[in-house]
Protein backbone atom coordinates (compact mmCIF):
# COMPACT_ATOMS: atom_id res chain seq x y z
CA UNK A 1 0.00 0.00 0.00
CA UNK A 2 2.80 2.42 0.84
CA UNK A 3 4.95 3.44 -2.16
CA UNK A 4 8.13 5.42 -1.33
CA UNK A 5 8.33 6.81 -4.86
CA UNK A 6 4.72 8.03 -4.91
CA UNK A 7 4.57 11.50 -3.40
CA UNK A 8 0.82 11.99 -3.93
CA UNK A 9 0.02 8.55 -2.57
CA UNK A 10 2.02 9.06 0.62
CA UNK A 11 0.35 12.35 1.43
CA UNK A 12 -3.05 10.95 0.52
CA UNK A 13 -2.52 7.96 2.83
CA UNK A 14 -1.98 10.24 5.84
CA UNK A 15 -5.14 12.12 5.04
CA UNK A 16 -7.12 8.92 4.48
CA UNK A 17 -6.02 7.61 7.88
CA UNK A 18 -6.74 10.96 9.58
CA UNK A 19 -10.19 10.93 8.01
CA UNK A 20 -10.83 7.39 9.25
CA UNK A 21 -9.86 8.36 12.82
CA UNK A 22 -12.20 11.37 12.61
CA UNK A 23 -15.01 9.09 11.40
CA UNK A 24 -14.41 6.74 14.35
CA UNK A 25 -14.46 9.61 16.82
CA UNK A 26 -17.64 11.02 15.34
CA UNK A 27 -19.32 7.63 15.52
CA UNK A 28 -18.17 7.26 19.14
CA UNK A 29 -19.62 10.66 20.02
CA UNK A 30 -22.86 9.73 18.32
CA UNK A 31 -23.36 6.70 20.53
CA UNK A 32 -22.52 8.59 23.74
CA UNK A 33 -25.02 8.29 26.59
CA UNK A 34 -27.93 10.72 26.53
CA UNK A 35 -27.90 13.00 29.58
CA UNK A 36 -31.02 13.16 31.73
CA UNK A 37 -32.65 16.03 33.62
CA UNK A 38 -33.89 13.97 36.60
CA UNK A 39 -36.72 16.17 37.91
CA UNK A 40 -38.76 15.89 34.71
CA UNK A 41 -38.04 12.29 33.90
CA UNK A 42 -39.88 9.19 35.05
CA UNK A 43 -37.19 6.49 35.14
CA UNK A 44 -39.59 3.88 33.73
CA UNK A 45 -40.37 6.11 30.74
CA UNK A 46 -36.69 6.98 30.33
CA UNK A 47 -35.86 3.27 30.08
CA UNK A 48 -38.10 3.16 27.02
CA UNK A 49 -37.04 6.47 25.45
CA UNK A 50 -33.26 6.35 25.86
CA UNK A 51 -32.62 3.17 23.82
CA UNK A 52 -34.90 4.49 21.06
CA UNK A 53 -32.90 7.73 20.90
CA UNK A 54 -29.62 5.79 20.85
CA UNK A 55 -30.87 3.63 17.95
CA UNK A 56 -32.07 6.72 16.06
CA UNK A 57 -28.63 8.30 16.52
CA UNK A 58 -26.85 5.20 15.20
CA UNK A 59 -29.20 4.80 12.23
CA UNK A 60 -28.76 8.48 11.29
CA UNK A 61 -25.00 8.31 11.64
CA UNK A 62 -24.94 5.18 9.46
CA UNK A 63 -27.08 7.01 6.88
CA UNK A 64 -29.74 4.29 7.06
CA UNK A 65 -33.20 5.76 6.48
CA UNK A 66 -34.91 2.37 6.78
CA UNK A 67 -33.41 1.63 10.20
CA UNK A 68 -34.24 5.15 11.39
CA UNK A 69 -37.85 4.80 10.25
CA UNK A 70 -38.12 1.34 11.86
CA UNK A 71 -38.44 3.15 15.20
CA UNK A 72 -41.76 4.63 14.01
CA UNK A 73 -45.22 3.10 13.72
CA UNK A 74 -46.63 2.31 10.27
CA UNK A 75 -48.93 5.32 10.50
CA UNK A 76 -46.44 7.72 12.11
CA UNK A 77 -46.24 11.46 11.53
CA UNK A 78 -43.01 13.47 11.60
CA UNK A 79 -42.77 17.26 11.59
CA UNK A 80 -39.15 18.07 10.76
CA UNK A 81 -37.10 21.19 11.53
CA UNK A 82 -38.20 22.78 8.25
CA UNK A 83 -41.85 22.36 9.21
CA UNK A 84 -42.41 19.62 6.63
CA UNK A 85 -44.93 16.94 7.51
CA UNK A 86 -43.75 13.41 6.67
CA UNK A 87 -46.35 10.66 6.82
CA UNK A 88 -46.07 6.88 7.39
CA UNK A 89 -42.98 4.83 8.14
CA UNK A 90 -42.19 4.25 4.47
CA UNK A 91 -42.57 7.97 3.71
CA UNK A 92 -40.19 8.81 6.54
CA UNK A 93 -37.66 6.23 5.31
CA UNK A 94 -37.77 7.50 1.73
CA UNK A 95 -37.41 11.17 2.71
CA UNK A 96 -34.57 10.52 5.13
CA UNK A 97 -32.68 8.32 2.69
CA UNK A 98 -32.85 11.13 0.15
CA UNK A 99 -31.49 13.57 2.75
CA UNK A 100 -28.68 11.19 3.71
CA UNK A 101 -27.61 11.22 0.09
CA UNK A 102 -27.82 15.01 -0.08
CA UNK A 103 -27.67 17.80 2.47
CA UNK A 104 -27.11 15.47 5.46
CA UNK A 105 -24.55 13.24 3.77
CA UNK A 106 -22.16 11.75 6.35
CA UNK A 107 -23.78 13.79 9.12
CA UNK A 108 -23.85 12.72 12.76
CA UNK A 109 -26.97 12.89 14.92
CA UNK A 110 -26.48 13.14 18.68
CA UNK A 111 -29.29 13.17 21.21
CA UNK A 112 -27.96 15.43 23.93
CA UNK A 113 -30.52 15.48 26.70
CA UNK A 114 -33.66 13.71 27.77
CA UNK A 115 -35.58 16.68 29.14
CA UNK A 116 -38.91 15.05 29.87
CA UNK A 117 -40.20 11.48 29.76
CA UNK A 118 -43.47 10.47 31.36
CA UNK A 119 -46.46 8.20 30.96
CA UNK A 120 -49.65 9.79 29.60
CA UNK A 121 -51.56 6.51 29.90
CA UNK A 122 -50.66 2.82 30.02
CA UNK A 123 -48.74 2.08 26.82
CA UNK A 124 -48.20 5.77 25.93
CA UNK A 125 -45.28 8.01 26.89
CA UNK A 126 -44.41 11.58 25.97
CA UNK A 127 -40.78 12.60 25.60
CA UNK A 128 -38.99 15.91 25.09
CA UNK A 129 -35.34 15.77 24.09
CA UNK A 130 -32.75 17.95 22.42
CA UNK A 131 -30.27 16.95 19.77
CA UNK A 132 -27.54 18.25 17.55
CA UNK A 133 -26.56 17.35 14.00
CA UNK A 134 -22.95 17.66 12.94
CA UNK A 135 -22.89 18.19 9.18
CA UNK A 136 -19.34 17.89 7.80
CA UNK A 137 -20.34 19.58 4.55
CA UNK A 138 -21.14 22.75 6.48
CA UNK A 139 -24.75 23.96 6.31
CA UNK A 140 -27.47 23.97 7.51
CA UNK A 141 -25.99 25.39 10.72
CA UNK A 142 -29.17 27.25 11.82
CA UNK A 143 -31.04 23.96 11.93
CA UNK A 144 -28.30 21.94 13.61
CA UNK A 145 -29.56 22.12 17.19
CA UNK A 146 -33.14 21.20 17.83
CA UNK A 147 -35.73 20.23 20.43
CA UNK A 148 -38.28 17.51 19.80
CA UNK A 149 -41.47 16.24 21.40
CA UNK A 150 -42.48 12.70 20.59
CA UNK A 151 -45.21 10.27 21.54
CA UNK A 152 -44.23 6.63 21.90
CA UNK A 153 -46.79 3.79 21.87
CA UNK A 154 -46.56 0.17 22.89
CA UNK A 155 -48.07 -2.16 20.30
CA UNK A 156 -47.71 -5.91 20.80
CA UNK A 157 -44.90 -5.37 23.28
CA UNK A 158 -42.91 -3.09 20.96
CA UNK A 159 -42.47 0.61 21.69
CA UNK A 160 -42.50 2.80 18.58
CA UNK A 161 -42.85 6.51 17.86
CA UNK A 162 -46.32 7.54 16.71
CA UNK A 163 -45.68 11.28 16.39
CA UNK A 164 -42.47 13.31 16.28
CA UNK A 165 -42.30 17.12 16.18
CA UNK A 166 -38.96 18.89 15.81
CA UNK A 167 -38.09 22.60 16.07
CA UNK A 168 -34.71 24.24 15.54
CA UNK A 169 -33.33 26.07 18.59
CA UNK A 170 -32.32 29.55 17.61
CA UNK A 171 -31.79 32.90 19.29
CA UNK A 172 -34.45 35.48 18.60
Amino acid at each position, binding site marked *: MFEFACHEGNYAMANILRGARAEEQRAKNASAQVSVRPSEVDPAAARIASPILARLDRAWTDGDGGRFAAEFTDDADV*INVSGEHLRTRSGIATQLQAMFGGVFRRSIHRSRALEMARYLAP*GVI*IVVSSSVIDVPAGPPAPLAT*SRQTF*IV*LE*REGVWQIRHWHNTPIRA*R
Partner: protein
Amino acid sequence: MITTLSAIVLLGALQAPATPIVSSSQAEVDVRKAVQAFYDAYNAHAFDKLAEFTTEDWTHITPSGIERRGRAEVLTALKQVHSTFLKGVTDTPEEIAVRFATADVGIVTVRSRTTTFTTPDGVTHENEGRIRTFVVVKRATRWLIMQDQNTVRGAR
Protein backbone atom coordinates in the same frame (compact mmCIF):
# COMPACT_ATOMS: atom_id res chain seq x y z
CA MET B 1 -64.04 -11.67 -6.87
CA ILE B 2 -65.80 -11.71 -3.49
CA THR B 3 -63.22 -14.17 -2.19
CA THR B 4 -60.39 -11.90 -3.31
CA LEU B 5 -62.01 -8.87 -1.70
CA SER B 6 -62.61 -10.82 1.50
CA ALA B 7 -58.97 -11.87 1.55
CA ILE B 8 -57.84 -8.26 1.16
CA VAL B 9 -60.17 -7.11 3.93
CA LEU B 10 -59.04 -9.96 6.18
CA LEU B 11 -55.40 -9.24 5.45
CA GLY B 12 -55.98 -5.60 6.33
CA ALA B 13 -57.64 -6.61 9.58
CA LEU B 14 -54.75 -8.92 10.47
CA GLN B 15 -52.27 -6.13 9.85
CA ALA B 16 -54.14 -3.65 12.05
CA PRO B 17 -52.16 -2.52 15.11
CA ALA B 18 -52.87 -4.33 18.36
CA THR B 19 -53.85 -1.04 19.98
CA PRO B 20 -56.33 0.42 17.51
CA ILE B 21 -56.45 4.13 16.89
CA VAL B 22 -59.54 5.21 18.76
CA SER B 23 -61.78 7.42 16.69
CA SER B 24 -64.80 8.52 18.62
CA SER B 25 -66.60 11.32 16.87
CA GLN B 26 -67.60 13.00 20.15
CA ALA B 27 -64.01 12.84 21.41
CA GLU B 28 -62.82 14.39 18.16
CA VAL B 29 -65.38 17.18 18.47
CA ASP B 30 -64.25 17.88 22.04
CA VAL B 31 -60.55 17.85 21.12
CA ARG B 32 -61.16 20.22 18.20
CA LYS B 33 -63.11 22.51 20.55
CA ALA B 34 -60.15 22.71 22.95
CA VAL B 35 -57.73 23.55 20.14
CA GLN B 36 -60.08 26.08 18.53
CA ALA B 37 -60.62 27.70 21.95
CA PHE B 38 -56.84 27.99 22.24
CA TYR B 39 -56.62 29.90 18.95
CA ASP B 40 -59.64 32.07 19.80
CA ALA B 41 -58.11 33.11 23.13
CA TYR B 42 -54.67 33.55 21.56
CA ASN B 43 -56.00 35.78 18.79
CA ALA B 44 -58.08 37.82 21.23
CA HIS B 45 -54.93 38.14 23.39
CA ALA B 46 -57.06 36.87 26.26
CA PHE B 47 -54.28 34.72 27.64
CA ASP B 48 -55.85 34.16 31.06
CA LYS B 49 -58.63 32.27 29.26
CA LEU B 50 -56.06 29.67 28.17
CA ALA B 51 -56.15 28.33 31.73
CA GLU B 52 -59.63 26.93 31.02
CA PHE B 53 -58.44 24.39 28.48
CA THR B 54 -54.81 23.71 29.38
CA THR B 55 -53.39 21.49 32.13
CA GLU B 56 -51.49 22.96 35.04
CA ASP B 57 -48.36 21.15 33.80
CA TRP B 58 -48.75 22.45 30.23
CA THR B 59 -45.44 22.59 28.33
CA HIS B 60 -45.07 24.98 25.41
CA ILE B 61 -42.22 24.92 22.89
CA THR B 62 -41.94 28.07 20.78
CA PRO B 63 -40.96 28.33 17.09
CA SER B 64 -37.49 29.29 18.37
CA GLY B 65 -37.24 25.99 20.24
CA ILE B 66 -37.54 27.60 23.67
CA GLU B 67 -39.29 25.42 26.21
CA ARG B 68 -41.65 26.80 28.87
CA ARG B 69 -42.79 24.46 31.63
CA GLY B 70 -45.97 24.82 33.62
CA ARG B 71 -49.05 26.90 32.80
CA ALA B 72 -47.99 29.84 34.99
CA GLU B 73 -44.61 30.13 33.26
CA VAL B 74 -46.13 29.73 29.80
CA LEU B 75 -48.74 32.43 30.41
CA THR B 76 -46.16 34.86 31.81
CA ALA B 77 -44.00 34.36 28.70
CA LEU B 78 -46.95 34.70 26.30
CA LYS B 79 -48.11 37.93 27.95
CA GLN B 80 -44.57 39.31 27.80
CA VAL B 81 -43.98 38.68 24.08
CA HIS B 82 -47.50 39.74 23.15
CA SER B 83 -47.04 43.06 24.90
CA THR B 84 -43.87 43.70 22.88
CA PHE B 85 -42.92 42.39 19.42
CA LEU B 86 -45.97 40.13 18.99
CA LYS B 87 -48.45 42.82 20.04
CA GLY B 88 -51.60 42.45 17.96
CA VAL B 89 -50.26 39.46 16.02
CA THR B 90 -52.74 36.69 15.21
CA ASP B 91 -52.30 33.08 14.14
CA THR B 92 -55.08 31.62 12.00
CA PRO B 93 -55.54 27.85 11.58
CA GLU B 94 -55.72 26.68 7.96
CA GLU B 95 -56.05 22.95 8.64
CA ILE B 96 -56.63 20.96 11.82
CA ALA B 97 -56.04 17.18 11.85
CA VAL B 98 -56.96 15.10 14.89
CA ARG B 99 -55.65 11.61 15.67
CA PHE B 100 -55.85 9.52 18.80
CA ALA B 101 -53.00 7.61 20.42
CA THR B 102 -55.46 6.08 22.89
CA ALA B 103 -59.00 6.85 24.01
CA ASP B 104 -57.60 9.50 26.38
CA VAL B 105 -54.72 10.97 24.36
CA GLY B 106 -55.30 13.06 21.24
CA ILE B 107 -52.61 14.33 18.88
CA VAL B 108 -53.56 17.38 16.85
CA THR B 109 -51.59 18.85 13.96
CA VAL B 110 -52.45 22.41 12.93
CA ARG B 111 -51.18 24.29 9.90
CA SER B 112 -51.62 28.01 10.42
CA ARG B 113 -50.50 31.43 9.24
CA THR B 114 -49.55 34.44 11.34
CA THR B 115 -49.88 38.11 10.60
CA THR B 116 -46.62 39.94 9.94
CA PHE B 117 -44.32 40.83 12.84
CA THR B 118 -40.70 41.86 13.44
CA THR B 119 -38.54 40.07 16.01
CA PRO B 120 -36.08 41.93 18.28
CA ASP B 121 -33.23 40.93 15.96
CA GLY B 122 -34.82 43.15 13.29
CA VAL B 123 -36.04 40.31 11.07
CA THR B 124 -39.52 40.74 9.60
CA HIS B 125 -41.63 37.60 9.45
CA GLU B 126 -44.21 38.18 6.76
CA ASN B 127 -47.33 36.03 7.06
CA GLU B 128 -45.26 33.15 8.34
CA GLY B 129 -46.59 29.62 7.88
CA ARG B 130 -46.52 27.49 11.03
CA ILE B 131 -47.16 23.88 11.93
CA ARG B 132 -48.00 23.02 15.51
CA THR B 133 -48.57 19.79 17.41
CA PHE B 134 -50.94 19.75 20.37
CA VAL B 135 -51.09 16.83 22.77
CA VAL B 136 -54.56 16.89 24.26
CA VAL B 137 -55.43 14.63 27.20
CA LYS B 138 -58.68 13.68 28.85
CA ARG B 139 -58.63 14.60 32.54
CA ALA B 140 -61.83 13.55 34.32
CA THR B 141 -64.48 14.53 31.76
CA ARG B 142 -62.58 17.33 30.01
CA TRP B 143 -60.08 17.44 27.17
CA LEU B 144 -57.14 19.72 28.00
CA ILE B 145 -53.98 20.75 26.14
CA MET B 146 -50.93 19.49 28.03
CA GLN B 147 -48.22 20.08 25.42
CA ASP B 148 -47.75 22.09 22.26
CA GLN B 149 -44.82 22.64 19.96
CA ASN B 150 -44.63 25.06 17.06
CA THR B 151 -42.33 25.12 14.02
CA VAL B 152 -41.99 27.61 11.17
CA ARG B 153 -42.82 26.07 7.80
CA GLY B 154 -40.16 26.41 5.14
CA ALA B 155 -37.42 27.32 7.65
CA ARG B 156 -33.95 26.99 6.11
